[in-house]
């Protein structure tokens, strides 16, 4: 199965972490089942070649990642102004291969209900399992935003009493790009955030590149990276045990509940945009 979704082919996709690439000089990867070679040229700039045709693809470097496109991009790479603020760490949290559709990964990222069960002791803890009602909207820029998402989170510190309510905000920029904002414990008016740039390797496999954007104070880079890897390692076995691996867009394929409001909109949005790669289209 190859990709026929124009909206995806003509978009930019992150295919390599620049730092990682520099240490290895070149790597082979796949985008929409097409094999790519990503390498560093003598001038230090990365190049991306479509192996089967020996053709060079357009390249950009942004947010510490190498981006490319198989088609003719008619819009730029997403713009994240906060990433450029001087007092933030911009850390790549690593690139994780997962044997499941990238769309399933997006949905998992938008989901608070699994915190107490999958990220026990870190992002949630039984019996505090309730997902309170939150707001979801489709913006005029055609992005999905979920706000007022509160969740009870355990705190490891001995002084904290029974955990705190953490506020999240979610944002789906593009079918395979999703971000999460989380209140910074030191600056209640500013948010840390994590963006996933998901590389659709095949309809049932992907590489999740993630960019972490944390306010420097009170945080160390290795800690952030370690935390992200821990969380991701907990999600991976769940993701790889979802049947089917592709995201079903038929409303009767799975059972949504109120807590899945944002996922319901995401699936509908994918349907409306005719995004079928990584999905099982509704009949």
């Amino acid at each position, binding site marked *: 199965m190859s990709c026929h979704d124009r909206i995806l082919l003509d978009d930019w996709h992150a295919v390599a972490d620049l730092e990682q690439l520099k240490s290895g000089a070149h790597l082979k990867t796949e985008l929409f089942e097409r094999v790519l070679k990503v390498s560093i040229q003598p001038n230090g700039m990365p190049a991306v070649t479509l192996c089967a045709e020996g053709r060079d693809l357009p390249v950009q470097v942004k947010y510490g990642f190498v981006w490319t496109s198989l088609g003719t991009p008619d819009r730029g790479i997403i713009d994240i102004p906060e990433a450029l603020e001087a007092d933030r760490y911009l850390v790549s949290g690593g690139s994780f291969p997962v044997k499941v559709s990238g769309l399933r990964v997006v949905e998992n990222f938008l989901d608070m209900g699994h915190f107490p*069960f999958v990220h026990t002791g870190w992002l949630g803890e039984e*019996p505090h399992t309730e997902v309170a009602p939150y707001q979801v909207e489709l913006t005029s820029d055609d992005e999905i935003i979920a706000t007022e998402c509160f969740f009870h989170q355990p705190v490891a510190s001995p002084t904290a009493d029974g955990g705190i309510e953490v506020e999240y905000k979610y944002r789906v920029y593009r079918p395979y790009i999703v971000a999460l904002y989380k209140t910074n414990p030191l600056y209640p008016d500013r948010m840390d955030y994590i963006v996933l740039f998901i590389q659709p390797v095949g309809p049932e496999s992907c590489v999740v590149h993630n960019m972490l954007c944390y306010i420097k104070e009170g945080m160390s880079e290795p800690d952030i990276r370690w935390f992200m890897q821990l969380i991701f390692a907990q999600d991976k076995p769940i993701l790889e045990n979802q049947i089917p691996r592709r995201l079903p867009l038929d409303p*009767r*394929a799975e059972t949504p*509940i109120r*807590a899945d409001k944002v996922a319901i909109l995401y699936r509908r949005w994918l349907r409306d945009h005719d995004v079928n790669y990584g999905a099982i289209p509704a009949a």
Partner: protein
Amino acid sequence: MTTDLQSNWYPIASSSDLPKRHVYQAQLLGREFAVWRADDGYVNVWENRCLHRGVRLSIGINNGTELRCQYHGWRYANRTAGCTYIPAHPADAPARTICNNTYPAQEAYGLVWAGELAVGELPAIDGFESATVLRPVPIMAPQKMVNQALLGYAWDDTCESAENSDGSVTITATDGSAVRVFVQPVDSNHSVARALYNRKVAGEERIALLKRHSWLMQELRDRTETQAARQETPAPYEPVIAKVSEDLVDIPAISVDGRKADLRVQVARKEMTADGIASLRLEAIKDQLPTFQPGAHIDVHLPNGLVRQYSVTNGPGETDHYTIGVKREPDSRGGSVAIHDTVGEGDVLAISAPRNNFPLRRDAVHTIFIAGGIGVTPLIAMARALNAQGLEFEFHYFVQSDDHVAFKRELSEFEGALNIHKGQSPKETGETLTEVLANPGYARHVYICGPGPMLEATRQIAADKGWADEAVHFEYFKNTTELDDSNSFEIDLARSAMTLTVPAGKSILDVLRENGINMSSSCEQGACGTCRCGVIEGDVIHQDVYLSDGEKAEGRSIMTCVSRAASNRLILDI
């Protein structure tokens, strides 16, 4: 498309694959199963897929009574595979239709048998009543080819083989020893040979037997796989995964079901559990009883035409019966007397499916149960659910005397959490409750069930002690309010675009029904919440005991069986 293959029984696991609290992953004709044994011995064979987000249930947790999905913790009941709890929405009862696919299963001859569409009983396997299960051998070849190869299987010169009508192959030697091999079609090119030896052997002899056949079977496997590799590999089966029911497509609302008594149950046991209280164990006559949740009740239709509600006392996973408790109330209209005096073991009763108006949150750090008299029944089911999950609670039970303590065996499960308060006067009860309710707090909840006055008193004490409305849950069995139905008013039905007049002496519910609008109800005295309806505009005179004071003040819903309009007109959301 139904094929013969689908209607056959196949072994899909050995009994030994299902140790206590384990979930085994099996596969038949390309379809994955989650196979698990509950603590009561029942073997469940389910679609290996959580209805919520498709996660394999074989990575879930078998707690002995329910299977819990790893992703969001949904719980599915033993036998019924009905969802009993959705942790993301602890205050809601899951819609009853959330039910996983189950497949016919049987455990016999040391093997677990299943078939996608198998019907009836597994045919007897004569001569293997006391057999030894040999080691299963996976073979990457189509089932037919393996069967063919088995016809040449032999462990000595006297062996003769024959194919049975069910497709299995029996190999017999002249000394009377025999092996019968069943080939499980895992997928179109993947089989497992599962064999029985017709004698029970143990110790050294068993090890020798297993070794010998493993070795022979591996030879057969190698030969068959080589043969299969020479052929074109058949396309894998593509099992169709059934869609979820239509009503779950949108975020499910509170389920509305009518007053239907579509189940027939038999009174399997009736005994006195306390002075004046009978316990009845009701079992299905055929088919599986629907899933219940702790706090649920059933309508029981009595021989004398009366309908009564009784709470189910079952613990999680006890899905082969419902047990209810019935108090003899001589001055009542005769419902309980009929059960006490005329219903006996073996009798058949018509009941409704369980309905849950009293859902239990399981996200509390501490739960307090307060029961008075027969009000203990729903709370028993709730406390048993929390107990099974290891969640903290205390259980207070107010009774006249020791003779009035019902369900002693079930209560003994609660051990240190149980406090029985005997023979207290209303004043003493109030004092005890003041102590019990001294500490409201974050994620602490109270559940009350008992006679009206006690319930009122408890709610009042809880309010005085600072418990939030949302933390105090109760179920009235009776509405003792003096009902006033003397006014007349109009109702506008927003969705059906109708205007109707409710005259004095009739309820909104009566008028709706007269006009052909199907509204569910159960107790018809403002106690059960079944006939609840949304109010879009207008003021309500609430005469029910179901809504909380907060909900009454909000005025956004009405119990159509007893409550009325305070204004000239109500706009209802029907």
